């Protein structure tokens, strides 16, 4: 049997894949956090709850309306994005003039309400959500057996991240967004509707979280608490990457997911904390984060 550093190659590649999948979610979530923070100066603590909301919307669409995975892949982010825009209009927009920490506290409260409410209605046990038939099964790649859905996650999340990057860097909307990140007052003076831009940006970030949630639903079970510990790991990812660049958020997300997966192979006891340890080391060496600009 082939081995890598004394570990069977099958187990090694298996954990690498698990790491890549976790990394996909880290990347999509930290991407949304970075976009929201760039423009709104708010750290969205509710991001984990919105991820869970995305998965639940998918589950409820299937359970009550018989709407399957593919339409849900569009509908769940749209619904959660709309929800986010309402929240931004009603509440967050009132917090732009005060210390950014209040935004963190508000979204923390929002996360508690959403997660507490879902736990009340649906209990803590996970609900199964099956992937569509086209994505079930596995292919034998010769050196390992790859479940199709897991491969799909990695590729789909790469596409989503790339698309978001193109949206921000290559479109007119993205140009407005970047300009408003630099200097909102000036952009407003040029006749761009900055408040609308803020609402759309928050909606976009929320939709990304929901998309990650519905994609995660078949892999992990749908449960009210699926996002609550995840958000803390994603915060660590964001600290490591620094929130200056979108590409940085994506790369850091995948890299830390893989690092976590590999730790599971070589030293399982530390797999829970390896991302936090990496964060501490990065803080020592480069406090602004790997891709961050100095604050």
């Amino acid at each position, binding site marked *: 049997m082939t081995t890598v550093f004394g570990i069977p190659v099958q187990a090694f590649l298996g954990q690498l894949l698990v790491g890549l999948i976790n990394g996909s979610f880290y990347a999509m979530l930290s991407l949304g956090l970075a976009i929201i923070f760039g423009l709104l100066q708010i750290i969205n603590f509710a991001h984990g709850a919105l991820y869970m909301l995305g998965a639940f919307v998918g589950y409820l669409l299937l359970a009550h309306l018989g709407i399957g995975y593919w339409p849900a892949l569009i509908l769940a982010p749209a619904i959660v994005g709309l929800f986010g825009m309402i929240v931004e209009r009603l509440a967050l927009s009132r917090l732009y003039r005060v210390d950014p920490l*209040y935004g*963190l506290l508000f979204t923390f409260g929002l996360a508690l*309400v*959403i997660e507490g409410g879902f736990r009340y209605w649906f209990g803590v046990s996970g609900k199964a959500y099956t992937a569509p038939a086209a994505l079930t099964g596995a292919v034998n790649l010769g050196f390992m057996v790859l479940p199709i859905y897991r491969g799909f996650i990695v590729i789909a999340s790469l596409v989503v991240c790339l698309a978001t990057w193109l949206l921000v860097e290559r479109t007119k909307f993205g140009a407005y967004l970047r300009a408003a990140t630099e200097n909102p007052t000036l952009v407003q003076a040029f006749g761009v509707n900055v408040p609308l831009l803020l609402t759309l940006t928050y909606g976009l970030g929320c939709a990304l979280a929901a998309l990650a949630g519905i994609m995660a639903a078949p892999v992990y079970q749908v449960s009210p608490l699926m996002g609550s510990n995840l958000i803390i790991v994603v915060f660590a990812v964001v*600290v490591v990457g620094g929130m200056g660049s979108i590409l940085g958020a994506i790369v850091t997300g995948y890299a830390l997911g893989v690092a976590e997966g590999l730790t599971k192979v070589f030293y399982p006891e530390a797999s829970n904390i390896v991302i936090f340890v990496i*964060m501490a080391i990065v*803080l020592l060496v480069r406090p602004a984060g790997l891709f961050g600009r100095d*604050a």
Partner: protein
Amino acid sequence: MADKSVSPGLARDPEADAETSAARIEWLLTALGVAALIAAPFFFYPVFVMSMLCFALFACAFNLLLGYTGLLSFGHAAFFGGAAYFTAHAIKEWGLSPELGLLVGMIGAALLGLLIGFFAIRRQGIYFAMITLALAQMFYFFCLQAPFTHGEDGIQGVPRGNVLGLLDLEKTLNMYYFVLAVFLLGVFAIWRIVHSPFGMILRSIRENEPRAISLGISVARYKLAAFVMSAALAGLAGGLKTIVFQFATLTDVSWQMSGEVILMTLLGGIGTMAGPIVGAGLVIALQNSLATSSFPVTVVTGAIFMVCVLVFRRGIVGEAYALFKR
């Protein structure tokens, strides 16, 4: 930077320009409060009041950092819950007396604060909050796996023992007055820190950090010192809670606990001496009254959070101060 990020510190300090008459009323209210606490066990269930006092001390310690230094720590559960474990272990396994157990908890929390603070003060504002949260979560996982904490079971059946070999804490009233004494001592220590030259420097860092640096203050050292003091006092509260309830569990180190202490401080009034005490009392009373119903506490807690942030940023005591001044 965008203009929206240029905002005053997290909270104004109403005490700084308090007039003499206001100060007299403050003394009167303090005396009334202490008298009420001395009488409380005869009117309320003592364990309930004791738990309020433990959390009030925790919130006051937290407020030393948020209200007077302007640092929002999202990881204070690590110090509260960590000290709970240390005290429980010292009393149960090493057979130490309660006061030495509390000391062990405090020292442990201070060392933990030194470690977490060392990393966290390298960044500011929102990053500081995220780093403290992440490091506290790391400590949570440590507690989940370390053998001395007994994982999901926690440390159960911690004996209360005798204070200085004299006062038997198994008697509820003795326990109550011991808790009250430690609470008053802790709050007095915080009051002394805040009203010392050291405390003034902390406030200057909160109000304008670049200016404090330009005045030659080594801001990083002061921040770390404040962080360690806050951690140690939070640890005192955690150890005290362990002796009252006779156990230490993972709940006390979880991030929800860090959120709870923020809520207590925010609800009562950030940067006021009495605010965290009022906030802790209200939150504990609320949790107590909801404990019997099936309605989820977190929904209520979260809703209060949102309302406070939107319309009530000064908190109850802060609003009262503002009313009084008008």
